[in-house]
């Protein structure tokens, strides 16, 4: 499990690599929450291109972070979602609160994070 991030204005682009299940969820949650200690972050964009597996434990992780940033008037989005993960996000109804984009650029421009 590896997490890397990149700050672009009010948005944090977070890449999660590996598998997100109950075993790894605590470590992921801790890393994300320490990033969110910076109150100027309003948007989280998750790059899931290198996430090989996710089950309902991941749903809890995304909902928890959504609660934090939505309090700040922000939002959570996901990009490069692979089929297995897409199916989990779909059945759990997560797309009612987080948005999916085809690319980081698209997700960033949706939150006004790119200088045009």
């Amino acid at each position, binding site marked *: 499990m590896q997490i890397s991030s990149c700050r672009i204005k009010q948005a944090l682009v977070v890449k999660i690599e590996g*598998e997100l*299940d*109950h*075993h790894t*969820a605590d470590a992921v*949650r801790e890393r994300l929450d320490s990033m969110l200690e910076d109150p100027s972050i309003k948007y989280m964009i998750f790059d899931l291109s290198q996430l090989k*597996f996710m*089950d*309902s*434990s991941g*749903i*809890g*992780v995304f*909902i*928890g972070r959504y609660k934090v940033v939505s309090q700040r008037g922000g939002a959570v989005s996901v990009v490069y979602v692979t*089929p*297995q993960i897409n*199916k*989990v996000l779909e*059945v*759990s*109804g997560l797309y009612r609160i987080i948005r999916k984009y085809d690319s980081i650029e698209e997700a960033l421009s949706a939150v006004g994070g790119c200088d045009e």
Partner: protein
Amino acid sequence: MEVINEMRLEFPSKSQNESFARVTVAAFAAQLDPTLEEIADIKTAVSEAVTNAIIHGYENTIGIVTVIAKLYEGKIEIEVIDEGKGIEDIEKARQPLYTSKPELERSGMGFTVMETFMDEVEVISAPGQGTRVKLVKYLKSAGGELRRNDGQG
């Protein structure tokens, strides 16, 4: 229906074994020539059931989780068994969004995921008697057909 092959796994309820269990069952299921999507479905459902056994069945104690998989022509049957605390109201437990552990950021979607990804989900449980979750998936892939016609094309 005749069992083609079967296997049994037993391991302590440690979270490291969640990935071990789902990967092992998926590798075993590969004998039926499932599609990539079917393999991913099986992995996800097994992960849900095993995680439930560890988190809810045994809570903070260590017990044995048993996984049995049986292969049939075009069908896989998986049982995930714990001897933990059991479920009082199975119908309520299976409802989307119901969780007894919201404080752990559980979403209550595990059973819903199992039901969506598999064709049949049967839950046998009683308080203090442990839980047995039976997952069945019919494989749409023509693997079985193809094998029977081996050597003719």
